[in-house]
């Protein structure tokens, strides 16, 4: 860790100059200067269309892009960098699985199992697959505190189940699901398992081989990288049998007026000019995280989360969604305040310089299950500190009185 990294906050102009207490990190993080600079440098020094270029800039761009792919593969423990596809975001990764795998390998009579806590991006694509293929979509339900015992899957699964898709960490509960156990149950029943890693990959070490998942999706912008770059990991044998998703550009081998043969994986799934700048940014973001290391990142996040939860417990009328143990939150604290609408809560936080999110957090069915139309969420990254929480708590304490309540 360099000295600059220690003074991590000073490196985020948004946080310092704007004097904002940024607690919406699950929606998107801020970008450190080293990430911004890596992208700049790429555009200033090596920019060209990669692939097939027979000149230096293009070869450099190809290297920059492929090195980013290798870094991502290493970061999540993939067996090969050929298993990493660059997408725009988690949503596109999940849609790619649904369109290319779901629409082609699932049929009437088959079944998909997902959980009620899924983000819309891991729910709507499966609703579409069910609608178009005639297969059945089944939901499994956690306890009210977010705990989803693997037995729920065991009870629901059958030899009809062909695909299980589950989030590793819910963006509302912040709780870790036991993906290892889900994967074991899915495979034992002949199903593949897709994991939504949007909230896990930025916050805990993820090893796809260890988890034995078949697909893993995540977004760069939630882990300090620029917007517009995401990742789909998939086991090579699956990628090889899946048809392409988007068509055009370098994803082909031969094209005639009648049809085409396709390039090898992962290129088969990367149609059109790729986003080298974005990949370079993601690679720099991984370097940034590695300079701190998982121990440090997790320690910092847990500390502020614990501190926040302790302080929140002292404020009357505040109800935290999910587990009572901060270790089960991974920086995500979703809550309600009695008789105050989350949009008013967020508004009052905003006028105190605190950025939190209010609404259904793209998880309407989960909110229905929890009996709340909407909630407020404060979410931490490892650059947040206790001072942020103090500001957050002092605003929180005044919300009900701002709204005219006596206590």
């Amino acid at each position, binding site marked *: 860790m360099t000295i600059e990294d220690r003074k991590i906050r000073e490196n985020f102009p948004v946080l310092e100059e704007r004097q904002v207490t940024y607690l919406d990190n699950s929606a998107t993080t801020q970008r450190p200067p080293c990430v911004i600079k890596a992208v700049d440098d790429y555009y200033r020094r090596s920019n060209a269309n990669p692939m097939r270029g027979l000149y230096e800039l293009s070869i450099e761009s190809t290297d920059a892009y492929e090195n980013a792919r290798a870094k991502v593969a290493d970061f999540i423990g993939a067996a090969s960098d050929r298993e990493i596809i660059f997408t725009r975001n988690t949503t596109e990764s999940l849609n790619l699985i649904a369109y290319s795998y779901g629409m082609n390998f699932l049929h009437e009579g088959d079944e998909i199992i997902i959980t009620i806590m899924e983000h819309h991006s891991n729910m709507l694509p499966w609703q579409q697959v069910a609608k178009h293929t005639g297969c059945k979509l089944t939901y499994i339900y956690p306890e009210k505190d977010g705990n989803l015992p693997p037995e729920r899957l065991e009870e629901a699964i059958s030899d009809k189940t062909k695909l299980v898709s589950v989030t590793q960490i819910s963006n509302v509960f912040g709780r870790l699901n036991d993906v290892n156990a889900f994967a074991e149950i899915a495979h034992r029943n002949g199903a593949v398992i897709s994991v939504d890693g949007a909230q896990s990959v930025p916050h805990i070490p993820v090893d796809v081989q260890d988890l034995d998942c078949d697909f893993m999706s995540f977004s760069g912008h939630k882990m300090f990288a620029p917007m517009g770059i995401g990742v789909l990991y998939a086991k090579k044998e699956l990628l090889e049998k899946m048809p392409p998703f988007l068509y055009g550009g370098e994803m082909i081998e031969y094209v005639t007026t009648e049809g085409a043969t396709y390039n090898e994986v992962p290129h088969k799934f990367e149609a059109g000019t790729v986003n080298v700048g974005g990949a370079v940014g993601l690679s720099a973001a991984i370097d940034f995280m590695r300079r701190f290391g998982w121990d440090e990142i997790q320690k910092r996040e847990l500390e502020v989360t614990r501190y926040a939860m302790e302080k929140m417990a002292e404020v009357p009328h505040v109800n935290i969604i999910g587990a009572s143990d901060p270790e089960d939150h991974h920086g995500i604290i979703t809550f309600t305040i009695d008789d*105050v*609408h*989350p*949009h*008013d809560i967020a*508004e*009052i936080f905003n*006028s*105190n*310089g605190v950025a939190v999110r209010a*609404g*259904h957090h793209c998880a309407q069915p989960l909110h229905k299950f929890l009996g709340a*139309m*909407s909630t407020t969420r404060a979410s931490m990254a490892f650059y947040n500190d206790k001072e942020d929480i103090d500001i957050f708590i002092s*605003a929180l304490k*005044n919300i009900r009185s*701002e*709204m*005219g*309540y006596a206590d």
Partner: protein
Amino acid sequence: MANTFYNEILTDHNMHPVHKHKIDGANFTLEGVNPSCGDDINLNLRVENGIVSDGGFEGDGCAISQASCDMMLDIIIGKPIKEAKELADIFIRMITGKVTEEEKDRLEEASILQDISHMPSRTKCAVLGWHTMDEMLKDE
């Protein structure tokens, strides 16, 4: 504490809405929703001889949507349809565009919501009740 626009008039209408109840003999009913916020109101009016003789609402939403709807009913009950629609037009323009001072005065208490015109994410909340009223009376 920073200054917010949640002043006493607004919070009072939110906590103790005068018109948040069922009414008898409603002959106009419409549900108004802001999907992105979750605001959801059911507006009921009783119109007799071209006059809004009573009105009430039910539902959920943020303080702004609730208070704004309650204030609206305060002003329009007892007024002719034509005037109620004029007031809706003025209110919506106050939030999303421009009004004159005279126009604003006609909105009585509801004019305190003008600040919301600077908050793009909340304008929909403020106009929900008014839009719903305007929509339900559009053929009258």
